[in-house]
Protein backbone atom coordinates (compact mmCIF):
# COMPACT_ATOMS: atom_id res chain seq x y z
CA UNK A 1 0.00 0.00 0.00
CA UNK A 2 1.59 3.26 -1.13
CA UNK A 3 1.86 5.94 1.49
CA UNK A 4 1.36 9.20 -0.32
CA UNK A 5 0.51 12.20 1.75
CA UNK A 6 -3.12 13.03 0.98
CA UNK A 7 -4.12 16.66 0.90
CA UNK A 8 -6.94 17.27 3.38
CA UNK A 9 -9.38 18.79 0.91
CA UNK A 10 -12.49 17.71 -0.93
CA UNK A 11 -11.53 15.40 -3.78
CA UNK A 12 -12.82 17.04 -6.90
CA UNK A 13 -12.23 14.12 -9.21
CA UNK A 14 -15.46 12.12 -9.05
CA UNK A 15 -14.06 8.65 -9.59
CA UNK A 16 -11.14 9.21 -7.25
CA UNK A 17 -13.53 10.50 -4.64
CA UNK A 18 -15.83 7.54 -4.96
CA UNK A 19 -12.92 5.09 -4.73
CA UNK A 20 -11.52 6.87 -1.69
CA UNK A 21 -14.91 6.88 -0.08
CA UNK A 22 -15.34 3.16 -0.53
CA UNK A 23 -11.93 2.32 0.91
CA UNK A 24 -12.01 4.70 3.80
CA UNK A 25 -15.54 3.83 4.75
CA UNK A 26 -14.53 0.21 4.97
CA UNK A 27 -11.50 1.13 7.04
CA UNK A 28 -13.56 3.27 9.37
CA UNK A 29 -16.03 0.49 10.02
CA UNK A 30 -13.18 -1.85 10.75
CA UNK A 31 -11.71 0.62 13.24
CA UNK A 32 -15.01 1.01 15.10
CA UNK A 33 -15.33 -2.73 15.31
CA UNK A 34 -11.81 -3.10 16.66
CA UNK A 35 -12.32 -0.39 19.23
CA UNK A 36 -15.48 -2.04 20.43
CA UNK A 37 -13.90 -5.49 20.70
CA UNK A 38 -10.53 -4.52 22.17
CA UNK A 39 -11.99 -2.29 24.83
CA UNK A 40 -15.24 -4.08 25.41
CA UNK A 41 -17.38 -1.02 24.86
CA UNK A 42 -20.58 -0.13 23.02
CA UNK A 43 -20.33 1.98 19.90
CA UNK A 44 -22.08 2.80 16.67
CA UNK A 45 -21.26 4.59 13.43
CA UNK A 46 -23.64 6.11 10.90
CA UNK A 47 -22.39 7.17 7.51
CA UNK A 48 -24.44 9.12 5.00
CA UNK A 49 -22.88 9.44 1.58
CA UNK A 50 -23.86 11.38 -1.51
CA UNK A 51 -24.05 7.99 -3.21
CA UNK A 52 -26.86 6.54 -1.13
CA UNK A 53 -30.01 7.78 0.53
CA UNK A 54 -29.84 5.13 3.20
CA UNK A 55 -26.89 5.28 5.53
CA UNK A 56 -24.32 2.66 6.19
CA UNK A 57 -24.38 1.60 9.81
CA UNK A 58 -22.19 -0.25 12.28
CA UNK A 59 -22.85 -2.66 13.81
CA UNK A 60 -26.27 -2.82 12.15
CA UNK A 61 -29.50 -0.84 12.33
CA UNK A 62 -30.76 -2.58 15.45
CA UNK A 63 -27.42 -2.39 17.23
CA UNK A 64 -27.06 1.28 16.41
CA UNK A 65 -30.59 2.04 17.59
CA UNK A 66 -29.80 0.35 20.87
CA UNK A 67 -26.61 2.34 21.40
CA UNK A 68 -28.33 5.57 20.45
CA UNK A 69 -31.16 4.88 22.89
CA UNK A 70 -28.55 4.39 25.60
CA UNK A 71 -26.96 7.65 24.50
CA UNK A 72 -30.20 9.57 24.60
CA UNK A 73 -30.96 8.27 28.06
CA UNK A 74 -27.96 10.09 29.47
CA UNK A 75 -28.35 13.58 30.92
CA UNK A 76 -28.03 16.33 28.33
CA UNK A 77 -24.79 17.58 29.89
CA UNK A 78 -23.12 14.18 29.75
CA UNK A 79 -24.08 13.86 26.10
CA UNK A 80 -22.61 17.19 25.07
CA UNK A 81 -19.56 17.17 27.30
CA UNK A 82 -17.49 15.10 24.92
CA UNK A 83 -19.42 15.90 21.78
CA UNK A 84 -17.54 17.35 18.86
CA UNK A 85 -18.18 18.30 15.30
CA UNK A 86 -15.61 18.87 12.57
CA UNK A 87 -14.89 22.39 13.66
CA UNK A 88 -14.40 21.78 17.35
CA UNK A 89 -12.50 18.58 16.68
CA UNK A 90 -10.03 20.25 14.35
CA UNK A 91 -9.61 23.14 16.77
CA UNK A 92 -8.73 20.63 19.48
CA UNK A 93 -6.11 19.07 17.22
CA UNK A 94 -4.71 22.47 16.40
CA UNK A 95 -4.41 23.31 20.07
CA UNK A 96 -2.62 20.07 20.79
CA UNK A 97 -0.23 20.48 17.89
CA UNK A 98 0.57 24.04 19.01
CA UNK A 99 1.43 22.81 22.48
CA UNK A 100 3.72 20.14 21.11
CA UNK A 101 5.39 22.63 18.80
CA UNK A 102 6.00 25.09 21.60
CA UNK A 103 7.54 22.36 23.73
CA UNK A 104 9.69 20.98 20.93
CA UNK A 105 10.95 24.41 19.93
CA UNK A 106 11.93 25.14 23.48
CA UNK A 107 13.77 21.85 23.79
CA UNK A 108 15.59 22.44 20.53
CA UNK A 109 16.54 25.94 21.53
CA UNK A 110 17.94 24.66 24.80
CA UNK A 111 19.95 21.96 23.05
CA UNK A 112 21.30 24.46 20.56
CA UNK A 113 22.37 26.92 23.20
CA UNK A 114 24.00 24.15 25.18
CA UNK A 115 26.21 23.48 22.18
CA UNK A 116 27.05 27.16 22.03
CA UNK A 117 27.83 27.11 25.70
CA UNK A 118 30.27 24.23 25.25
CA UNK A 119 31.87 26.11 22.41
CA UNK A 120 32.07 29.16 24.59
CA UNK A 121 33.89 27.19 27.25
CA UNK A 122 36.66 26.48 24.80
CA UNK A 123 36.99 30.14 24.08
CA UNK A 124 35.08 30.44 20.84
CA UNK A 125 33.73 33.90 20.32
CA UNK A 126 30.22 35.12 20.94
CA UNK A 127 30.18 37.57 18.04
CA UNK A 128 27.62 35.89 15.84
CA UNK A 129 24.94 35.95 18.47
CA UNK A 130 22.24 38.54 18.66
CA UNK A 131 20.63 39.78 21.83
CA UNK A 132 17.99 37.10 21.76
CA UNK A 133 20.58 34.36 21.45
CA UNK A 134 22.67 35.88 24.21
CA UNK A 135 19.63 36.00 26.41
CA UNK A 136 18.88 32.33 25.83
CA UNK A 137 22.53 31.43 26.20
CA UNK A 138 22.64 33.21 29.53
CA UNK A 139 19.61 31.23 30.64
CA UNK A 140 21.20 27.92 29.73
CA UNK A 141 24.45 28.84 31.48
CA UNK A 142 22.43 29.81 34.51
CA UNK A 143 20.60 26.47 34.54
CA UNK A 144 23.86 24.61 34.31
CA UNK A 145 25.41 26.70 37.05
CA UNK A 146 22.50 25.95 39.35
CA UNK A 147 23.02 22.24 38.78
CA UNK A 148 26.74 22.55 39.41
CA UNK A 149 26.18 24.44 42.65
CA UNK A 150 23.69 21.83 43.77
CA UNK A 151 26.04 19.03 42.88
CA UNK A 152 28.97 20.63 44.65
CA UNK A 153 26.89 20.91 47.79
CA UNK A 154 25.78 17.33 47.48
CA UNK A 155 29.30 16.05 46.99
CA UNK A 156 30.57 18.07 49.91
CA UNK A 157 27.80 16.78 52.13
CA UNK A 158 28.34 13.20 51.05
CA UNK A 159 31.91 13.40 52.34
CA UNK A 160 30.97 10.69 54.78
CA UNK A 161 31.66 8.15 52.06
CA UNK A 162 35.33 7.34 51.77
CA UNK A 163 35.55 7.63 48.01
CA UNK A 164 34.58 11.28 47.80
CA UNK A 165 36.84 12.28 50.66
CA UNK A 166 39.78 10.60 49.03
CA UNK A 167 38.80 12.41 45.87
CA UNK A 168 38.92 15.70 47.70
CA UNK A 169 42.19 14.74 49.32
CA UNK A 170 43.70 13.61 46.08
CA UNK A 171 42.55 16.75 44.35
CA UNK A 172 44.01 18.88 47.09
CA UNK A 173 47.23 16.93 46.91
CA UNK A 174 47.44 17.38 43.18
CA UNK A 175 46.92 21.10 43.37
CA UNK A 176 49.35 21.43 46.25
CA UNK A 177 51.98 19.42 44.43
CA UNK A 178 51.69 21.54 41.33
CA UNK A 179 51.68 24.82 43.21
CA UNK A 180 54.66 23.92 45.38
CA UNK A 181 56.99 23.31 42.48
CA UNK A 182 58.36 25.26 39.58
CA UNK A 183 59.09 23.62 36.28
CA UNK A 184 60.77 20.37 36.96
CA UNK A 185 60.31 16.88 35.78
CA UNK A 186 59.86 15.15 39.12
CA UNK A 187 56.56 16.66 40.37
CA UNK A 188 54.47 15.58 37.41
CA UNK A 189 55.41 12.04 38.24
CA UNK A 190 54.30 12.52 41.82
CA UNK A 191 51.11 13.97 40.58
CA UNK A 192 50.11 10.99 38.58
CA UNK A 193 49.28 8.65 41.44
CA UNK A 194 47.08 11.32 43.02
CA UNK A 195 45.21 11.88 39.81
CA UNK A 196 44.76 8.18 39.41
CA UNK A 197 42.75 8.11 42.58
CA UNK A 198 40.22 10.39 41.05
CA UNK A 199 38.85 7.35 39.34
CA UNK A 200 39.19 8.70 35.86
CA UNK A 201 39.92 6.70 32.77
CA UNK A 202 43.33 7.21 31.18
CA UNK A 203 42.12 9.92 28.80
CA UNK A 204 40.41 11.91 31.52
CA UNK A 205 43.39 11.44 33.78
CA UNK A 206 45.83 12.97 31.38
CA UNK A 207 43.38 15.74 30.56
CA UNK A 208 43.00 16.54 34.23
CA UNK A 209 46.77 16.60 34.70
CA UNK A 210 46.92 19.05 31.87
CA UNK A 211 44.11 21.07 33.27
CA UNK A 212 45.67 21.20 36.72
CA UNK A 213 48.88 22.33 35.25
CA UNK A 214 47.27 24.86 32.99
CA UNK A 215 45.33 26.32 35.90
CA UNK A 216 48.49 26.70 37.91
CA UNK A 217 50.86 27.90 35.31
CA UNK A 218 49.13 30.91 33.89
CA UNK A 219 51.99 33.25 34.50
CA UNK A 220 54.85 30.79 34.38
CA UNK A 221 57.08 30.07 31.43
CA UNK A 222 55.15 26.95 30.82
CA UNK A 223 52.90 29.00 28.64
CA UNK A 224 51.55 26.54 26.19
CA UNK A 225 50.40 29.07 23.70
CA UNK A 226 46.69 28.51 23.82
CA UNK A 227 45.96 32.10 23.05
CA UNK A 228 44.79 34.99 25.16
CA UNK A 229 44.10 34.13 28.74
CA UNK A 230 40.72 35.75 28.78
CA UNK A 231 39.66 34.03 25.59
CA UNK A 232 40.55 30.57 26.75
CA UNK A 233 38.34 29.67 29.59
CA UNK A 234 38.92 25.97 29.48
CA UNK A 235 41.64 24.38 27.42
CA UNK A 236 40.43 22.49 24.46
CA UNK A 237 41.41 18.92 24.98
CA UNK A 238 41.43 17.48 21.58
CA UNK A 239 43.24 14.42 20.40
CA UNK A 240 44.86 16.44 17.64
CA UNK A 241 46.21 19.00 20.06
CA UNK A 242 47.67 16.49 22.43
CA UNK A 243 50.18 15.29 19.93
CA UNK A 244 51.78 18.67 19.26
CA UNK A 245 51.26 20.72 22.32
CA UNK A 246 52.09 18.57 25.30
CA UNK A 247 55.68 19.13 26.38
CA UNK A 248 57.70 16.00 26.40
CA UNK A 249 58.17 16.04 30.15
CA UNK A 250 54.72 14.74 30.59
CA UNK A 251 55.14 11.80 28.36
CA UNK A 252 57.47 9.21 29.80
Amino acid at each position, binding site marked *: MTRKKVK*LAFITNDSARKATFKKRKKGLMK*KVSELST*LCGIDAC*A*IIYSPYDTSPEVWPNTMGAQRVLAE*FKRMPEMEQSKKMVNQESFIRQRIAKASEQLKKQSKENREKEMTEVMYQGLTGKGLQ*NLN*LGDLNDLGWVIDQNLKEVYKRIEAVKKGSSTSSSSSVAAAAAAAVAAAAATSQSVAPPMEQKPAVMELGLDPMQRTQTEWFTDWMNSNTSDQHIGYGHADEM*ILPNFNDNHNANVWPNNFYP
Partner: protein
Amino acid sequence: MTRRISKGRQRVEMVKMKNASNLQVTFSKRRAGLFKKASELCTLCGAEIAIVVFSPGDKVFSFGHPSVDTLVERFLGRDLPPPNNDVHNQLIVAHREAGIRELNTKLMNLEEVLQMEKNRGESLQEIRRRANGQWWESPIEELNLFQLQHLKEALERLEQKVEKVAQQQKMVNNHAFPFHTLGSAWTPPNCARESSSYGLNVGAPFANRAIGSTSSIVPNY
Protein backbone atom coordinates in the same frame (compact mmCIF):
# COMPACT_ATOMS: atom_id res chain seq x y z
CA MET B 1 15.52 10.97 29.08
CA THR B 2 15.98 7.33 28.12
CA ARG B 3 14.23 6.37 24.96
CA ARG B 4 12.72 2.93 25.10
CA ILE B 5 13.21 1.25 21.75
CA SER B 6 9.70 0.28 20.67
CA LYS B 7 9.18 -2.95 18.84
CA GLY B 8 7.17 -1.08 16.25
CA ARG B 9 3.73 -1.96 15.01
CA GLN B 10 2.59 -5.29 16.33
CA ARG B 11 -0.39 -7.40 15.53
CA VAL B 12 -3.01 -7.22 18.20
CA GLU B 13 -5.34 -10.09 18.92
CA MET B 14 -8.97 -9.11 18.47
CA VAL B 15 -10.18 -9.88 21.94
CA LYS B 16 -10.95 -7.68 24.87
CA MET B 17 -7.69 -6.51 26.40
CA LYS B 18 -6.74 -7.97 29.73
CA ASN B 19 -4.74 -5.23 31.36
CA ALA B 20 -7.11 -2.49 32.52
CA SER B 21 -4.68 0.38 32.23
CA ASN B 22 -3.55 -0.71 28.75
CA LEU B 23 -7.19 -0.97 27.83
CA GLN B 24 -7.82 2.62 28.89
CA VAL B 25 -4.80 3.87 26.98
CA THR B 26 -5.83 1.91 23.93
CA PHE B 27 -9.28 3.34 24.15
CA SER B 28 -8.02 6.92 24.31
CA LYS B 29 -5.66 6.52 21.40
CA ARG B 30 -7.97 4.56 19.18
CA ARG B 31 -10.94 6.77 19.86
CA ALA B 32 -8.89 9.80 18.84
CA GLY B 33 -7.70 7.97 15.74
CA LEU B 34 -11.23 6.93 14.88
CA PHE B 35 -12.52 10.48 15.09
CA LYS B 36 -9.60 11.64 12.99
CA LYS B 37 -10.42 9.12 10.28
CA ALA B 38 -14.06 10.11 10.36
CA SER B 39 -13.14 13.76 10.08
CA GLU B 40 -10.94 13.01 7.09
CA LEU B 41 -13.65 11.02 5.39
CA CYS B 42 -16.05 13.93 5.77
CA THR B 43 -13.58 16.39 4.33
CA LEU B 44 -12.29 14.24 1.51
CA CYS B 45 -15.55 12.80 0.29
CA GLY B 46 -18.24 15.08 1.58
CA ALA B 47 -19.74 12.38 3.76
CA GLU B 48 -21.91 13.05 6.79
CA ILE B 49 -20.95 10.89 9.70
CA ALA B 50 -21.96 10.34 13.30
CA ILE B 51 -20.06 8.15 15.74
CA VAL B 52 -21.06 7.43 19.30
CA VAL B 53 -18.66 5.63 21.61
CA PHE B 54 -18.95 4.67 25.27
CA SER B 55 -15.73 4.71 27.26
CA PRO B 56 -14.61 1.99 29.69
CA GLY B 57 -15.53 4.49 32.40
CA ASP B 58 -19.07 4.82 31.03
CA LYS B 59 -18.58 8.33 29.69
CA VAL B 60 -19.79 8.95 26.16
CA PHE B 61 -17.79 10.44 23.30
CA SER B 62 -19.41 11.47 20.06
CA PHE B 63 -18.38 12.91 16.76
CA GLY B 64 -20.79 14.25 14.18
CA HIS B 65 -20.58 16.19 10.97
CA PRO B 66 -22.50 18.44 10.49
CA SER B 67 -23.67 17.61 14.00
CA VAL B 68 -24.35 14.54 16.09
CA ASP B 69 -27.89 15.54 16.96
CA THR B 70 -29.14 16.28 13.47
CA LEU B 71 -27.69 13.04 12.12
CA VAL B 72 -29.09 10.97 14.96
CA GLU B 73 -32.52 12.51 14.42
CA ARG B 74 -32.26 11.82 10.73
CA PHE B 75 -31.25 8.21 11.33
CA LEU B 76 -33.92 7.51 13.88
CA GLY B 77 -36.41 8.82 11.38
CA ARG B 78 -37.69 11.67 13.52
CA ASP B 79 -37.35 14.24 10.83
CA LEU B 80 -38.16 14.08 7.17
CA PRO B 81 -35.26 12.98 5.00
CA PRO B 82 -33.80 14.55 2.95
CA PRO B 83 -33.06 17.76 4.87
CA ASN B 84 -34.14 20.96 3.17
CA ASN B 85 -31.86 22.27 0.50
CA ASP B 86 -32.91 25.82 -0.17
CA VAL B 87 -30.55 28.67 -0.95
CA HIS B 88 -30.41 29.89 2.63
CA ASN B 89 -29.43 26.48 3.83
CA GLN B 90 -26.86 26.10 1.08
CA LEU B 91 -25.24 29.36 2.11
CA ILE B 92 -24.95 28.19 5.68
CA VAL B 93 -23.40 24.93 4.56
CA ALA B 94 -20.97 26.67 2.22
CA HIS B 95 -19.89 29.04 4.94
CA ARG B 96 -19.34 26.22 7.36
CA GLU B 97 -17.38 24.19 4.83
CA ALA B 98 -15.15 27.15 4.10
CA GLY B 99 -14.41 27.55 7.78
CA ILE B 100 -13.52 23.91 8.06
CA ARG B 101 -11.25 24.14 5.04
CA GLU B 102 -9.40 26.98 6.67
CA LEU B 103 -9.01 25.06 9.90
CA ASN B 104 -7.73 22.02 8.07
CA THR B 105 -5.16 24.10 6.24
CA LYS B 106 -4.03 25.64 9.49
CA LEU B 107 -3.75 22.19 11.05
CA MET B 108 -1.77 20.76 8.16
CA ASN B 109 0.73 23.62 8.21
CA LEU B 110 1.12 23.31 11.94
CA GLU B 111 1.80 19.59 11.72
CA GLU B 112 4.36 20.21 9.02
CA VAL B 113 6.21 22.74 11.12
CA LEU B 114 6.02 20.41 14.09
CA GLN B 115 7.58 17.64 12.05
CA MET B 116 10.40 19.96 11.01
CA GLU B 117 11.09 20.88 14.59
CA LYS B 118 11.08 17.21 15.54
CA ASN B 119 13.61 16.51 12.80
CA ARG B 120 15.71 19.38 14.03
CA GLY B 121 15.57 17.85 17.49
CA GLU B 122 16.85 14.58 16.13
CA SER B 123 19.74 16.28 14.36
CA LEU B 124 20.70 18.08 17.52
CA GLN B 125 20.56 14.79 19.34
CA GLU B 126 22.88 13.26 16.74
CA ILE B 127 25.34 16.08 17.11
CA ARG B 128 25.43 15.54 20.82
CA ARG B 129 25.79 11.80 20.42
CA ARG B 130 28.63 12.02 17.93
CA ALA B 131 30.39 14.85 19.74
CA ASN B 132 33.88 13.94 20.89
CA GLY B 133 33.15 15.66 24.13
CA GLN B 134 35.41 17.26 26.64
CA TRP B 135 35.32 16.16 30.23
CA TRP B 136 33.05 19.00 31.23
CA GLU B 137 30.41 17.79 28.83
CA SER B 138 29.89 14.58 30.75
CA PRO B 139 26.92 14.33 33.05
CA ILE B 140 27.45 16.22 36.26
CA GLU B 141 27.25 13.06 38.33
CA GLU B 142 30.47 11.82 36.76
CA LEU B 143 32.53 14.83 37.73
CA ASN B 144 34.56 14.97 40.89
CA LEU B 145 34.67 17.93 43.23
CA PHE B 146 37.85 19.24 41.67
CA GLN B 147 36.32 19.26 38.21
CA LEU B 148 33.04 20.65 39.46
CA GLN B 149 34.76 23.64 40.99
CA HIS B 150 36.71 24.36 37.85
CA LEU B 151 33.57 24.03 35.78
CA LYS B 152 31.77 26.38 38.12
CA GLU B 153 34.44 29.03 37.69
CA ALA B 154 34.53 28.59 33.95
CA LEU B 155 30.77 28.90 33.65
CA GLU B 156 30.72 31.99 35.83
CA ARG B 157 33.36 33.58 33.67
CA LEU B 158 31.44 32.70 30.55
CA GLU B 159 28.29 34.18 32.02
CA GLN B 160 30.09 37.44 32.67
CA LYS B 161 31.39 37.43 29.16
CA VAL B 162 27.88 36.98 27.80
CA GLU B 163 26.70 39.90 29.90
CA LYS B 164 29.51 42.03 28.55
CA VAL B 165 28.79 41.21 24.92
CA ALA B 166 25.10 41.79 25.48
CA GLN B 167 25.77 45.20 26.97
CA GLN B 168 27.95 46.07 23.99
CA GLN B 169 25.20 45.06 21.61
CA LYS B 170 22.67 47.14 23.47
CA MET B 171 24.97 50.14 23.28
CA VAL B 172 25.35 49.72 19.55
CA ASN B 173 21.60 49.49 19.13
CA ASN B 174 20.98 52.59 21.19
CA HIS B 175 23.55 54.50 19.23
CA ALA B 176 22.16 53.54 15.89
CA PHE B 177 18.57 53.95 16.98
CA PRO B 178 18.50 56.50 19.74
CA PHE B 179 14.76 56.23 20.16
CA HIS B 180 13.44 53.13 21.79
CA THR B 181 11.96 51.53 18.75
CA LEU B 182 12.47 47.87 19.43
CA GLY B 183 9.15 46.13 19.36
CA SER B 184 7.36 48.93 17.54
CA ALA B 185 6.56 49.58 13.91
CA TRP B 186 9.68 51.72 13.59
CA THR B 187 12.04 48.86 14.30
CA PRO B 188 14.20 48.26 11.27
CA PRO B 189 14.04 44.76 9.91
CA ASN B 190 16.63 42.24 10.99
CA CYS B 191 17.18 44.22 14.16
CA ALA B 192 18.24 42.29 17.21
CA ARG B 193 15.41 41.29 19.45
CA GLU B 194 15.64 42.98 22.80
CA SER B 195 14.55 39.93 24.64
CA SER B 196 13.62 36.51 23.52
CA SER B 197 10.79 34.49 24.84
CA TYR B 198 11.70 30.91 25.41
CA GLY B 199 8.90 29.83 23.20
CA LEU B 200 8.56 29.77 19.48
CA ASN B 201 11.91 30.52 17.97
CA VAL B 202 11.40 29.10 14.56
CA GLY B 203 12.84 32.24 13.02
CA ALA B 204 15.87 32.35 15.27
CA PRO B 205 19.30 32.64 13.70
CA PHE B 206 20.19 29.09 14.54
CA ALA B 207 16.98 27.81 13.18
CA ASN B 208 17.84 29.17 9.78
CA ARG B 209 21.04 27.23 9.49
CA ALA B 210 20.65 23.65 8.51
CA ILE B 211 22.22 21.43 11.04
CA GLY B 212 25.46 20.06 9.79
CA SER B 213 26.17 22.99 7.51
CA THR B 214 29.20 25.18 7.91
CA SER B 215 28.10 27.19 10.87
CA SER B 216 30.78 29.05 12.70
CA ILE B 217 29.20 28.30 15.99
CA VAL B 218 27.91 24.79 15.94
CA PRO B 219 30.82 22.69 14.83
CA ASN B 220 30.69 20.13 12.12
CA TYR B 221 31.27 16.81 13.75
